[in-house]
């Protein structure tokens, strides 16, 4: 049986031998980390390419089209072709820009979400670093994107960009609160902040948190969609109003980085949802345990991503004030109420038992 743990052992053993061969065993600690980062970057790049293809296919299916089918089998290489196209595009930037923030913004947009991948547990022990405050870390890191978007909007010296940037700032900070609050009930039940601990709790309890905490799951998905600037909450880049929103003035590779960052943000939020609410690497039924855990995990991530994609191609876009109303007047009261109800239920159940 293949499991993530074994793969990790195998690979790290192999790496040790390679280090010994090269006479670098003294630096094994650092090299391990670098290898992790490279592998994760490769994974993210390939997975995002797949996701872009998937998004096109999903939208094509929903719109009774065929979608990309020319480049590679089933059009799978379409995104690669697009990436090459974007790389060979000329980097056109406005003269009136504010140089330093303009340059930093795409880097930050990607790095902030990429760092979130550190704590994503693909399988038991198959995680880059199982931080004991994983949830807090991922929330803190991913909200750096607001700075990226705001600085992109401000530094472009473009009116659409500025509007998009401000909208995004208001939106992300507003939806940060329900996002954080919707995870609190799970932490109250498990008493753990690290992802592996939460999955292990679900394993022992024998149920996934999506069932007792369905409200939290829904609010989490809604606010995660808003956090990643995806439709129906994509007002910062609402193309029918602001042409490109905050990335109007970006082209070529820099634009690609925003694009990549957006998709990585979706991956990270879906990974959190899959881990916290859908049991991470656990199979839905014990007899399906022969399928490796990381495959289950990816399947669940893809399921959540499909949900988010389906939103995008079904719903119209909300207006900025309606968006804020939805966040502050609907999601926050619901999540707070959910916390209180969960607290009562847990305490009463604990007393009874």
């Amino acid at each position, binding site marked *: 049986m293949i499991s993530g743990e074994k793969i990790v052992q195998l690979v790290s053993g192999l790496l040790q031998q390679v280090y010994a061969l090269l006479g670098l065993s003294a630096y094994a600690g650092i090299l391990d980390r670098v290898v992790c980062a490279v592998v994760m970057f490769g994974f993210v790049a390939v997975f995002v390419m797949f996701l872009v293809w998937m998004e096109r296919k999903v939208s094509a299916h929903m719109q009774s089209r065929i979608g990309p089918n020319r480049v590679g089998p089933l059009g799978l290489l379409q995104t690669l072709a697009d990436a090459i196209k974007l790389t060979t595009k000329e980097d056109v930037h406005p003269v009136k820009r504010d140089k330093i923030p303009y340059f930093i913004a795409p880097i930050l947009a990607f790095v902030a979400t990429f760092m979130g991948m550190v704590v994503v547990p693909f399988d038991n022990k198959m995680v880059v670093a199982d931080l004991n405050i994983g949830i807090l870390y991922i929330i803190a890191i991913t909200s750096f994107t607001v700075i990226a978007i705001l600085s992109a909007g401000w530094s472009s010296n473009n009116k659409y960009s500025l*509007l998009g940037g401000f909208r995004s700032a208001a939106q992300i900070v507003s939806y940060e609160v329900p996002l954080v609050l919707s995870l609190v009930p799970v932490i109250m039940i498990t008493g753990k902040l690290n992802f592996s601990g939460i999955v292990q709790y679900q394993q022992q309890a024998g149920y996934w948190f999506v069932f007792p905490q369905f409200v939290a799951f829904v609010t989490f998905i809604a606010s995660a969609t808003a956090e990643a600037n995806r439709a129906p909450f994509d007002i910062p880049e609402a193309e029918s109003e602001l042409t490109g929103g905050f990335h109007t003035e970006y082209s070529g590779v820099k634009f690609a980085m925003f694009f990549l960052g957006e998709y990585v943000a979706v991956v990270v939020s879906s990974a959190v949802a899959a881990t916290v609410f859908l049991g991470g690497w656990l199979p839905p039924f014990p007899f399906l345990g022969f399928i490796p855990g990381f495959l289950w995990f990816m399947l669940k991530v893809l399921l959540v991503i499909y949900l988010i994609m389906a939103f995008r191609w*079904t*719903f*119209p*876009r*909300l*207006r900025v004030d309606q968006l804020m109303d939805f966040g502050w007047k609907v999601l926050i009261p619901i999540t707070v109420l959910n916390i209180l109800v969960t607290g009562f239920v847990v305490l009463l159940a604990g007393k009874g038992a």
Partner: protein
Amino acid sequence: MTDLLLSQIKPGGESPFGTDEYVVNMGPQHPATHGVLRLVVKLDGETVKETMPVLGYLHRSIEKICENRTYPQCITYTDRVDYVSAMSVNLAFALATERLMGLEAPPRAQWLRMIFVELQRLASHLLWMGAFAGDIGALTPFLYGLRERERILDLFEMTCGQRLTYNYIRIGGVMIDILPEFVPKCRAFLDYFEPKIPEYEELLTYNPIFLERTKGVGVITPEVGINCGVCGPSLRGSGISCDVRKQQPYLFYNQVKFNECLENDGDCWARYKVRMNEMRESVSIVRQCLDRLEPGPIETKLPPILKAPPASEIYSRIESSRGEMGIYLVGDGTPKPYKAKFRCASFSNTFVLDQLTRGWKVADIMAVLGSLDMIVPEVDR
């Protein structure tokens, strides 16, 4: 005009916490202005203080060109006035000329004209539905709208060989008779299409986000609508009966049964609903026309050179897909019109935009603009 607007901008100085006024150009190269309309928008944060349409980016002086073309030649130019609903403009011009010269098309031609104009209305409303939903942010209905529109265009192509600018409705009749298989194909399309309308309604009409975005937004009160010369489905959304097909029936519209679709709210949603219902009515009109279609000539005998009587003038109007389409022609006894004026629905509908969007948000401009169903070539001509 633009300079005048720009000169009024105050650098928000009065209070230390005031907002600077923000002037943003929307268009001419903008994804949501349906062509090359330019809107100069004065903003306070997200709130719209003033919207000013700036015209002329698609001006081709069609009216002037018509003065130098013979009447039959003008028909070609009318296609370009409103390329989304070219049949209607063809019909408007052909009817105006016929009335000016005292001609009348044979019955079969009249029925054919009705079939094609109503099919064109379907095609135009379908495209509008998609574009409107797209403006609001739902991209999927656009593809659905285009899917059905393609089948209508196939019917047009089968008949006159064109898909966009038909030049089909001519003075004194139509260009060419329909093929024998047109009628069954058209019926098949109608049978296919009619159940699709509830499908779109399911997708959009009571979608909560769609309702949020359109209910109560951009309300045209009846007074404002009449004062600004709003017409067509946009005015019918405010509950005012203004359908030329009912008020001043042309062709055989007095012989078919159909309802004038009215809504009372006057907001974007009402205008949407009016157009959705109009699609249903159009389907029923086309059905009735197909039933009444009888063999016969499709063109009257025209004199070798069409000349208007000297010092004659006519204002003739029809209900195009966008509203009242009026043609004003002055004849001077020569084969060319002395003056041709197109009264286009989009032009009058566009200028209510400022009143509708003041105090609303940037996103509402697009919703209102979309719901008015304006099309730039018709505004600029």
